[in-house]
């Protein structure tokens, strides 16, 4: 998923502008020497320089300001990516409630099924991987994975 150099440059400039504006609320050291805001501000100025250079390069090469090139990626590929991201969000919000085992099984099974693994294999792998991760992290490394519904 490519965007034009010009738009990357513009995003950097806007971001840096917001940083410069926001850091004005930061306190300063004694005698007015810069403190917490110095480093972010220096970076913001460098972001602006890089941004202007990218915009200049983009304009010189005659590219359109807003391009959003998805030619390198198929429609199903894009859906796959969104599902992967959705799976992470699902885990963040539901793992506490459902517990690790159930969440992991649901995510693995549905992702594998979507990626066209046979149902039987999806079931076996979803159970196997969940068990392996559980044994490694919860049993060997003593990470308190959430129990949730599984713990009832």
């Amino acid at each position: 998923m490519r965007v034009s150099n010009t738009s990357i440059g513009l995003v950097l400039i806007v971001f840096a502008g917001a940083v410069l504006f926001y850091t004005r609320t930061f306190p300063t050291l004694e005698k007015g020497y810069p403190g917490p805001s110095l480093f972010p501000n220096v970076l913001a100025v460098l972001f602006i320089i890089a941004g202007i250079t990218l915009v200049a390069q983009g304009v010189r090469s005659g590219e359109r300001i807003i391009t959003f090139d998805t030619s390198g990626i198929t429609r199903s590929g894009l859906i796959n990516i969104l599902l992967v991201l959705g799976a992470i969000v699902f885990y963040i919000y539901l793992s506490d409630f459902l517990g690790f085992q159930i969440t992991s099984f649901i995510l693995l099974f549905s992702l594998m099924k979507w990626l066209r693994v046979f149902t039987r294999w999806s079931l076996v792998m979803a159970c196997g991987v969940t068990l392996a991760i559980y044994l490694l992290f919860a049993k060997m490394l003593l990470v308190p994975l959430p129990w949730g519904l599984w713990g009832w």
Partner: protein
Amino acid sequence: MMLEHIHTAILLIAKPYVLLVIVISAVYGLFVGAIPGLTATMATALLVPVTFFMDPVPALAAIVTMEAMAIFAGDIPGALVRIPGTPSSAAYVEESYALTLQGKASLVLGVDVTVAAIGGLIGAIILILLAPMLAEVAMKFTSFEYFWLACIGLSCAVLVTKGSLIKGMVSLLIGLFMTTVGVDITLGFPRFTFGITDFLNGFNFIPAMIGMFGVSEVMRNVSSGDLSFSIASVKTEKLFVGIGKVLRKYKVNIGRAGLVGTFVGILPGAGADIGAWIAYAVSKRFSREAEKFGTGHIEGIVDAGTANNAALGGAWVPALVFGIPGDSITAIVIGVLFMKGLRPGPMIFQRTPEILYAVYIAFILANLILIPFGILAIKGGSQMLRVPRNMLMPAILMFCIVGSFAINNTTFDVGIMLGTGILAYFMEANDIPVAPAVLGIVLGRLLEDSFMVSMIKSEWDLTVFFHRPIGAVLGVITIFLWASPFFGFLRGRGRNRKA
């Protein structure tokens, strides 16, 4: 004294538990390296949540072994399916595949594993000889020198990136900016935390690395519709036939590539992949049969295959001596050592030399067992490539999630992983390299803290950075590095005008 340290280190490594960890990491490294789309850096990021709970010696031995195996194993799919297993094998993938088509796959892979082990040993020996010498110098460093060192490291990371210099700089700035989140050193003021307490200590390093190298890689893999390969078959019975002849013919190449690889590895930001490209180019430049390159000629493979494994040892030199990572893998290692309260730098040479010697021994051991393990991997190479990626990717994703969660037991870190994963995916899709950002994340705090501390000590007199002789030299090097792109630009202009 030294013998005593070596003895202690051998005792630390020779425990059954550590040896078991080494064997498991070896298998893991071979597997990850041999699967296209999974890189050695990703393997490190995924290994870290597990090693985080170990003692330093097994943890470091695991990473050293894993990386040696993974960089070699990247050659296997290069020869069999014409896809490099890791970016470090990309330089000679066409050459390897051309030889495979001539029916010489077993010769290519046999040479690959042998020169990988030799290259790895050259890198390890240079590491062992060079690191203590540099550490003597580093003992004299103060916050001024560390500031310049961080500057040199970061500048190198931008200058060595392939492609646009400006995009390398953007990447570095993104990494540096991420380190400004959290409590600042001068006043303890919470910056960019927006009231979220989880942000007070800054971005959690491990979830960020898992996001940047794990999640983004999974996204890239599932985005291509086709998740299977067609595999060339290899007859592996006569794996080592003809290798002696190749090694004898190209012994000078091996020595030269070992040095080139190690040196590139030492440069911050440049690792095994760039080492391989440079060694391949050098090989072609000095070859008597340069016209054969690209048509299935083993010479370039010998050079590049030696250099990428040699670069691994090189990258540990600045990492151990100065705490400045030589590549993305050592960047992750340094980040983790920091989290464990072990600050890499000259002090570990004095305080915990046994850890250092354990790293040395792990390097030598890893490269010695590379040959038997590598042979097994070559024999099983076709099978490994048949592991369906549509099963593998969900499993890796789950591992990423749990690995991120495991460090602080919070789903907030899983969110960090998600955010950095998306960021890295977009960066790579737009030719913005990720490696400078990682160096920025690792070195940002060192850079800011050493600058602010120096400034407050000297009451904001900027010239103090040049008062001490070592500092002045490092400062001049830094300024020279910053000016170098402009020299290149001016020279290019002059040439254009002449033309």
